[in-house]
């Protein structure tokens, strides 16, 4: 077994073992066993960092930089043979993307474990909480390590159920129970599409393995396959499958219209919100889109053209819309965790924009940086909540003096998410927006250019709103005067277990984009510069590792990545791939250069504008004025009601399902069962009639015979007087009679 595979397996299965031990006998250990999953994840973190360092230390080659993908598979389900073969394997697949995700997951998970030791201290079911965290970590690691779609689906569902268990952790709270159910069911709706997408993919490609799926796209197995939705309307099967498969990420990453569960999921304990509903699980959708990027892009991917796919356009539009929608809602929320939840939805929208406009590398980079600063924000919010026992921002204010560590770390992360230059969020967001603008330029001549420009417009507006509402939290929570003196008095800085993760995460929020990898990859970078002339290796470190080339690195032998395009190795296989001189690549490069400066200026401008406005409104001169008036008032109402989306679902989908269940229940009870009972009733009535006929008809005849005989007997009994002489006289008469008759006859 390859060392990398071995290490990944250990990273994967340690939390599972920890979970199994912890759930059964955890509470008998010291400290209820919280150290067990924590140390399991800790070891995982160290191993992941080792892999990460290995990746960064690898010399760039013409294929890009980083690890050579390795894969190991074990048979799991096997049915049929030949064409009907169904062969599902459990596989571990490790490449750069996997390693990055491993680091994100284990790092955030470890810090959240540590944080929870402080935050959850003394809670009921403390041991179970850690067991669930362990199970979640295992599932999430499984998701990023799987080598095929079906196992991604399996772990996808498993993280869903962990999320369910943890949202509903406060089991006695009705709202938590409802939120957990809502989260799981909303995700299931998305998973339904995901599953159909997988079915279609298996149907065409015959396999769920990523490399096989990519190969099926590359070799034209999807060509000329269309699906007729209605008469006259037909789409290519690849697009259809891609859109359906995107439903999975829509559910998990809370994209419109399936975003409704995420804000409700804040019912769970705050560390859970940080780990699952901000940093890792919700990012799984983005991970999947990144991992399946060649599939979503379609055959164009293999000519280096990521910009003409209808699926990707849909992803960009959905992401953009989600980003702006959630950002606006966040402005009107007063619950600190709800604001952060909508902020997460909005940032996930950003990542989707990135994927949609063709730079999945920056989308994943945003995932990477976002995980740190958003986890830090949530944990900071948890720290505040822990201190004043309230989630409402109107109970806070002025806390910076009482909680300096929380304040400073929170501020750093807020700056990072708002896009303050030189912090990590700025790099990732800027990368996405640049590409979005380049995408708009690229399609500038198209008649529907406006549609292609929408992702950028949505994105830049969402960025402004982000700065606005994030600093709103800062002003309302940490600055100004305490709104609730009593709570303020009792507030105190959290102790080490909670403060340490905040510091680490905020440190990462500063350095994760530029400085740290810059130092780590100093040598690799200089190598990259040398390689740059011959091969397309980007300046930015992350993009070197998470490149399109790396994604399809593991494709079956016979293909290789040359000059930004996938090419068959031998002439014989050229039939499968139509090689064209791709103008798209060159043109996009041109657009990208054009877009660079405007985006840079625009994003710095909108960030400053957002921060300034929010200072103006919440701390500065306007803060005592009632801003919500006039036309804003109506809009504010819409925002407070979350654009009536939840309400709409409740009134339509939920109500309809409920109605359908009532109708079915009624139908079953009243119609189907009635028919059965009626059949029974008819049988009983028929038997009644038959019984009557039998009683009065058949048996009646029998009884009548008896009755007649009886009557005759009763009549004739009178002859019997008991007197001998009567008998003799009678017999004599009879003799005479007989003789008389005899004589008459003779």
């Amino acid at each position, binding site marked *: 077994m390859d060392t990398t595979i071995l290490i990944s397996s250990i990273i994967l299965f340690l939390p599972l073992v920890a979970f199994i031990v912890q759930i059964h006998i955890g509470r008998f250990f010291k400290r209820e066993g919280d150290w067990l999953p924590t140390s399991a994840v800790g070891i995982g973190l160290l191993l992941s960092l080792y892999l990460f360092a290995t990746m960064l230390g690898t010399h760039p080659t013409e294929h890009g930089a980083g690890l050579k993908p390795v894969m190991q598979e074990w048979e799991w389900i096997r049915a049929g043979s030949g064409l009907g073969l169904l062969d599902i394997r459990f596989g571990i697949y490790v490449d750069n993307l996997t390693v990055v995700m491993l680091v994100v997951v284990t790092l955030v998970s470890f810090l959240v474990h540590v944080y929870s030791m402080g935050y959850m201290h003394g809670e009921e079911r403390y041991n179970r909480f850690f067991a669930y965290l362990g199970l979640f970590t295992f599932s999430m690691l499984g998701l990023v390590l799987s080598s095929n779609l079906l196992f991604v689906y399996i772990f996808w569902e498993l993280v869903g159920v962990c999320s369910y268990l943890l949202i509903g952790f406060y089991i006695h709270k009705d709202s938590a129970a409802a939120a957990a159910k809502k989260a799981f069911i909303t995700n299931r709706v998305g998973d339904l599409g995901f599953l159909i997408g997988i079915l279609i993919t298996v149907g065409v490609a015959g396999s769920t393995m990523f490399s096989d799926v990519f190969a099926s796209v590359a070799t034209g197995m999807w060509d000329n396959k269309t699906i007729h939705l209605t008469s006259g309307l037909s789409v290519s099967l690849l697009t259809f499958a891609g859109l359906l498969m995107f439903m999975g990420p829509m559910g998990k990453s809370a994209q419109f219209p399936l975003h409704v569960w995420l804000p409700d999921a804040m019912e769970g304990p705050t560390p859970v919100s940080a780990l699952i509903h901000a940093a890792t699980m919700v990012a799984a959708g983005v991970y999947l889109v990144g991992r399946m990027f060649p599939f979503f892009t379609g055959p164009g991917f293999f000519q280096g053209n990521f910009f003409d796919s209808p699926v990707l356009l849909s992803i960009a539009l959905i992401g953009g819309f989600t980003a702006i929608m959630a950002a606006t809602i966040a402005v009107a929320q007063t619950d600190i965790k709800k604001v952060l939840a909508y902020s997460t939805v909005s940032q996930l929208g950003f990542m989707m924009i990135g994927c949609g406009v063709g730079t999945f590398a920056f989308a994943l980079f945003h995932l990477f940086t976002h995980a740190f600063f958003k986890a830090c924000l949530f944990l900071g919010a948890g720290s505040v909540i822990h201190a004043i026992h309230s989630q409402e921002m109107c109970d806070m204010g002025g806390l910076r003096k009482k909680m300096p560590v929380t304040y400073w770390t929170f501020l750093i992360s807020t700056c990072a998410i708002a896009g303050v230059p030189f912090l990590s969020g700025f790099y990732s967001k800027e990368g996405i927006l640049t590409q979005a603008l380049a995408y708009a330029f690229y399609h500038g001549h198209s008649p529907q250019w406006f549609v292609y420009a929408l992702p950028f417009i949505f994105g830049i507006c969402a960025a402004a709103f982000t700065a606005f509402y994030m600093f709103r939290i800062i002003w309302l929570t940490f600055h100004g005067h305490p709104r609730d003196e009593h709570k303020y008095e009792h507030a105190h800085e959290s102790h080490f277990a909670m403060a340490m993760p905040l510091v680490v995460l905020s440190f990462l929020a500063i350095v994760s984009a530029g400085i740290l990898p810059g130092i780590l990859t100093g040598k690799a970078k200089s190598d990259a510069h040398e390689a740059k002339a011959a091969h397309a290796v980007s300046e930015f470190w992350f993009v070197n590792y998470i490149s399109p080339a790396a994604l399809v690195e593991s494709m079956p032998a016979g293909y290789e990545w040359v000059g930004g395009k996938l090419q068959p190795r031998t002439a014989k296989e050229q039939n499968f791939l139509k090689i064209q001189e791709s103008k798209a690549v060159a043109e996009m490069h041109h657009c990208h250069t054009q877009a660079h400066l405007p985006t840079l200026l625009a994003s710095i401008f909108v960030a400053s504008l957002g921060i300034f406005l929010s200072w103006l409104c919440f701390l500065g001169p306007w803060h005592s004025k009632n801003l919500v008036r006039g036309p804003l008032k109506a809009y504010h109402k819409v925002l407070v009601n979350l654009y009536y989306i939840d309400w709409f679902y409740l009134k339509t989908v939920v109500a309809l399902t409920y109605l359908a269940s009532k109708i079915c229940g009624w139908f079953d009870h009243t119609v189907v069962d009635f028919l059965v009972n009626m059949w029974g009733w008819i049988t009983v009535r028929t038997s009644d009639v038959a019984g009557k006929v039998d009683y009065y008809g058949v048996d009646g005849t029998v009884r009548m015979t008896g009755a007649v005989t009886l009557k005759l007997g009763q009549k004739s009994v009178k002859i*019997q007087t*008991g*007197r*001998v*002489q009567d008998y003799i006289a009678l017999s*004599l008469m009879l003799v005479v009679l007989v003789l008389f008759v005899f004589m008459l006859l003779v």
Partner: protein
Amino acid sequence: MNFNWLTDIGLTHYLTVSVVIFSLGIAVILAKRNAIAILMGIELLLNAACLNFVAFSHFGNGAQSGQVVAVFIIVIAAAEAAVALAIIVCVYRMFNLIAVDQIAKMKE
């Protein structure tokens, strides 16, 4: 007027006498209430039958079987009388009377 039938005694005469006796016997049996009288009526019946046998034997083909039967009948009559009288005594002891119309035990 021919009175030959008076002197020329034949079978018919015997039979006539027998019928008369038989009828008298029947009449006694039906009419009398006393059991002993009824027994006497039965004796008459037997005798009527006996007379018939003798008569037929005499005027028949000469076989003497009729006479034999007559002797049998006489014996039987004697036996019967003995038995019947015994029954009557029993009845008398039980009911203290021998009027047959008052004894209707057989009805039960």
